């Protein structure tokens, strides 16, 4: 009897291991290709102001409001906002001016960040604001309801100031998964995005996809900036694609 149990467990083990082994084999064939299934970049919400700016040839001013995970220490040019700017310039007609600026709200919760938005928008008046938030709230385990309220207020402030908004959620960080509870914050950002018809760039799901498919090993303890640079490059590309899709800027406006 014991042997039967053992055998079946071994078989189950083999069965579970089999597909993963294949995934490992396939990974090096397209190294760090930033590939993603289309649904991770799909959104129903639209970026009207971005579309208008590009079709009428006005400059596209993008502001990324983020936190420490928006940048890579000592390698600003490789961080995802810089990469997004480069890709957007590549994809949009050469006549189009694209400028991405970054506002780092280090160690600020969504509520604290949202409090600065009115002044920030007066100073910068961007076409599009990409608001990346949630990590600090998750680390401090802020009440998810309060978090939702803060994100709602922040989105409303940005929209009232006349900008299109994209929400970006937390990083997928497997190392700290047992210490930081991300799901309530992911869920609440999804709810706010849905309620306000704002596109949500699901950074968490995207990075998890890369990790699961073996494109990146996000468990890596490496202290060098290489992994961070590659991941940010892929995020920048995905984000550029996401913005263009949400603005319905199809191939007509794109160079390639």
């Amino acid at each position, binding site marked *: 009897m014991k042997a039967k149990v053992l055998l079946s467990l071994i078989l189950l083990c083999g069965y579970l291991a089999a597909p993963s082994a294949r995934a490992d084999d396939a990974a090096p064939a397209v190294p760090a290709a930033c590939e993603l299934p289309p649904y991770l970049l799909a959104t129903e919400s639209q970026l009207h102001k971005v579309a208008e700016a590009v079709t009428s040839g006005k400059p596209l001013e993008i502001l990324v409001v983020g936190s420490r995970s928006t940048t890579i220490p000592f390698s600003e040019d490789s961080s995802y906002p810089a990469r997004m700017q480069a890709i957007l310039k590549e994809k949009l007609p050469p006549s189009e001016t694209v400028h991405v600026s970054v506002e780092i709200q280090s160690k600020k919760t969504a509520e604290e960040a949202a409090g600065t938005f009115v002044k920030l928008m007066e100073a910068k008046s961007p076409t599009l604001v990409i608001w990346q938030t949630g990590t600090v709230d998750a680390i401090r385990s802020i009440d998810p309801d309060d978090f939702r309220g803060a994100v709602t207020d922040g989105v409303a402030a940005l929209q009232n100031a006349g900008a299109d908004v994209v929400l970006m959620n937390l990083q997928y960080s*497997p190392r700290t998964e047992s210490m930081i509870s991300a799901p309530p914050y992911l869920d609440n950002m999804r709810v706010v995005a849905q309620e306000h018809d704002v596109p949500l760039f699901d950074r968490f799901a995207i990075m998890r996809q890369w990790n699961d498919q073996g494109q990146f090993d996000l468990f890596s303890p490496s202290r060098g900036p290489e992994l961070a640079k590659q991941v940010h490059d892929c995020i920048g590309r995905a984000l550029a694609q996401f913005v263009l899709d949400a603005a319905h800027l199809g191939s007509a406006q794109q160079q390639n």
Partner: protein
Amino acid sequence: MTIADQVTGSTIAGTAGAKPAEVKSVDAKPRIAAPAITLPAIGERELRLDLFRGLALWLIFIDHLPPNLLTWFTIRNYGFSDATEIFIFISGYTAAFVYGRAMLENGFVIATARVLRRVWQIYVAHVFLFTIFLAEISYVATSFENPLYTEEMGIMDFLKQPDVTIVQALLLRFRPVNMDVLPLYIVLMLALPLILWSMKWRPDVTLALSALLYAATWEFDLYFSAYPNGFWAFNPFAWQLLFVFGAWCALGGARRMSRILASPVTMWISIAYLAAAFYVTLTWYVPQLSHFMPKLIEQWMYPIDKTDLDVLRFTHFLALAALTVRFLPREWPGLKSPWLRPLIVCGQHSLEIFCLGVFLAFAGHFILAEVASGPAMHALISLSGILIMWAMAWVISWYKRVADKSGVKTKNAVGNADLAGGG
């Protein structure tokens, strides 16, 4: 000779953890003066409870690990409720069963003392797990410096003021991720004497009061505050409903509901609800499907709140339970099959196995992060974790059997909290 024995009644040979039946309790029963509650007749140990609590323990363990293939076997992917609901309900059921009998036979004070003894055990277990968590997080803090995650390392900030953090942890106010269930259970167990005393008086009124408290929680936003900010991840004011409902079922409610449970109307409502819930969860994983979800329903439904035990979660659990009771009768021979033994044995030592599961989840995270990762390793860790839980449960059962054989005479009247476990 213990309380649990009397509940257990005559055991099936080899049923781990259960001890020889006591005849005394059978004649003790009629002497109880017109009780408002009725304890089910002495019979065989209710293996379904052990089975599902064991299952809940395995699922909680898997859910505490990073998502992997096995995660797809956990019920939270197929509906609103998850293993926590099963666990708290069964804990309420068994706690009422064991300590309710103690209260009827020995009075309020003795029963309360026994409950408090159990609460102390759970508290010590919680503090033990917290120590392990501290060890893990301190190690990761000093060894992990990937520039991609500088921000996430902010979680280590609390290590800078251990004086406050550790005191808050002892007060159950600072609770790291995945350590929320035991504090909830401690609070519910502390309330148990009151619940039982009230149930002895009027079970239905008690249940109604519990539902009222649940409603008040939603209406007035009652909560337990946590450190450094926020609130308990499982709000005891809301989750008590499931616990009290479990107690109510144990003390005769289940029998009175049997006609409702047996009705085909209940069955079809449950099936329809579970199917609808399944469809909704499907839209989380296959976003294309959400086109077919009316926006109005989405706005009404979300967010489905786990902290305050959303009504959708509670009803989902009820539907699951109704179908389980209907299609898995108490006498189902499969319950005695060796294939289900690992689950049942784990369910019979729930506090120990729960703590072991939390520890193994920490250890699993650690191995994945420090030694090797990859899906194969992941699956291996999940499976070994379950095997270790099974082995540990088996050893505990074996030890109890041996110890009881040698110490029956001296171990008089020491509350055996196994059945009420559920830690």
